[in-house]
């Protein structure tokens, strides 16, 4: 797969990604419902970003998950495993059927991703503030080797309250890591309240720019927009890119949207039925 084909966008490609984002949402809800635990608000928020990366942008081969030249994805917001595992299963890293074991005793589908169990996971995350530094390290390795793989890290927005994220951001800017893209899932909510009421992040784009990054702001649920900003240009960028993806926590399920309470949570039988019906309707639309 060449980079040139990745940058060729079409309505067909966007539809392909959208179908998978919808599927990821459905699976994440089913997983949380079955397990009685999960982070469905953040899963819904990140679904379009994950679908865009796994089904529209990244060069990966699930048959050779450790191929040295693969593009890397680091899930810095490691609690959103409902969405991550669904994307990995759909991409072919493990059987879709295995999603049913989510959080069951001894399952490879741990509450937070583990690379030693599960192919496709690049580093173990869960505690916040870890993924971006690791992504920076991978990008430095690629820079030293003049390799052409690209590194993507998806961070939460609340996660940016961790100092280690800014240690990593500062160093990535200093090293001019053009092979690194950080995507901020900017849904505005952290566990208990809005980010701005808790420890405000704005002006967020200015902060990244001040650290030496290029910044793009997009609607994080507009797949065509995500595709165009995340596709790797034929000519490598001179600086790392931060994509601030404006998203809605709980997106796609009316009663979850923008509700901090759905950070953790489990849909009841009736809520699950309603949520799946709404997602079906969206897909038909």
């Amino acid at each position, binding site marked *: 797969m060449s980079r040139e084909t990745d940058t060729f966008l079409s309505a067909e490609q966007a539809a392909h990604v959208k179908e998978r984002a919808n599927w990821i949402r459905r699976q994440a809800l089913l997983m949380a419902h079955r397990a009685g635990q999960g982070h469905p608000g953040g899963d819904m928020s990140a679904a379009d970003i994950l679908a865009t990366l796994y089904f529209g942008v990244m060069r990966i081969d699930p048959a050779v998950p450790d191929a040295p030249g693969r593009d890397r994805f680091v899930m810095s917001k490691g609690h959103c495993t409902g969405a991550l595992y669904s994307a990995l299963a759909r991409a072919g890293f493990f059987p879709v059927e295995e999603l049913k074991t989510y959080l069951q005793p001894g399952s490879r589908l741990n509450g937070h991703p583990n690379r030693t169990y599960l192919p496709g996971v690049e580093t173990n995350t869960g505690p916040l503030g870890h993924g971006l*530094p690791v992504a920076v390290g991978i990008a430095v390795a690629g820079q*030293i080797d003049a390799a052409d793989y690209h590194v993507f890290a998806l961070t939460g927005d609340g996660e940016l309250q961790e100092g280690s994220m800014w240690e990593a951001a500062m160093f990535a800017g*200093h090293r001019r890591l053009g092979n690194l893209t950080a995507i901020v899932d900017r849904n505005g909510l952290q566990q208990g309240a809005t980010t701005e009421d808790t420890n405000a992040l704005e002006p967020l784009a200015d902060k990244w720019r001040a650290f030496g990054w290029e910044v793009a702001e997009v609607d994080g649920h507009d797949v065509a927009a995500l595709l165009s900003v995340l596709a790797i240009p034929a000519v490598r960028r001179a600086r790392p890119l931060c994509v601030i993806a404006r998203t809605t926590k709980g997106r796609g399920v009316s009663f979850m949207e923008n509700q901090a309470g759905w950070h953790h949570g489990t849909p009841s039988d009736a809520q699950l039925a309603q949520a799946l019906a709404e997602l079906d309707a969206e897909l038909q639309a």
Partner: protein
Amino acid sequence: MSAAVPATGMFDCRNAYVETLEALAGEDSRIVAVVNDSIGSSKLGKFHERFPERLINVGIAEQNMVGVGAGLANGGKVPFVSGAACFLTGRALEQIKADCAYSNANVKLCGISSGVAYGELGATHHSIEDLAWLRAMKGLTIIVPSDPWETAEAIRWAAAHQGPVFIRISRMPVPALPRPADARFEIGKAELLRDGGDVAVVTCGTLVHHALAAADILAAEGIEARVLNMATIAPFDVEAVVAAAGTGGIVTAEEHVVRGGLGGAVAECVVAERPVPVRILGFPGFLPTGSAEWLMEQHGLSAAGIAQAARDLVARRG
């Protein structure tokens, strides 16, 4: 800060570390060094001159440094992450746990100026809790070399090993230990430096030569002390400790607090397998300022102090 100039016949193990690393880097292009503004204190100046692209200085940011190390390993590198042991372990403890040990990342963490090497700088700069912190993490190999030969062997072993390793390197001058010509570094195995059946001294790092001197003092009094160099703290050589318990009593000595370090590991073994008295020599907690030698002397971590502890154990047994 004490001068790092070695006395006659004494060595700064940092030199063995960097010379070995440089030699290995010349043979293996995957080897990179990662530092936190510590090129000088890690003595990596020559490495930097020789391999400028392969020295990654993240600045004063230990959490990022360890995360970057894990990322470099993911990208196929063999990173040696060096920084003052107190900050490398304390500041980035969760990164060592999640990014290195739990992720089984191929990262080599080198804690420099460990123990009380920075004696005069005070308790913030002493690294005397690190073994307790790290020993609790499964999957992390922990090595505390005692002299230049063992330091070089540990670095070579770590470079060849696939998985996370912590190596605790001092800056205090130590002699090269007497060893047979065919001595081999074996990970996870205690080194029997001196046999004896009356009492055993289990130690590591900068205290090994003091333990040997203590055994000389004891021998002059008719007490034969076995001396074990326990350079590998994890995985731990249970068998050697159980055999040492056969002498009837064990003294441990380490540049660490008495809780949770080498002495703790020995005590865990002995209690489970062959209960005998264990006297743990180490520090009680946060220490005042003072040279490393003074601090060790004050806490019985000298040849005379180790000998006294052993003598007491033997006398107690009657």
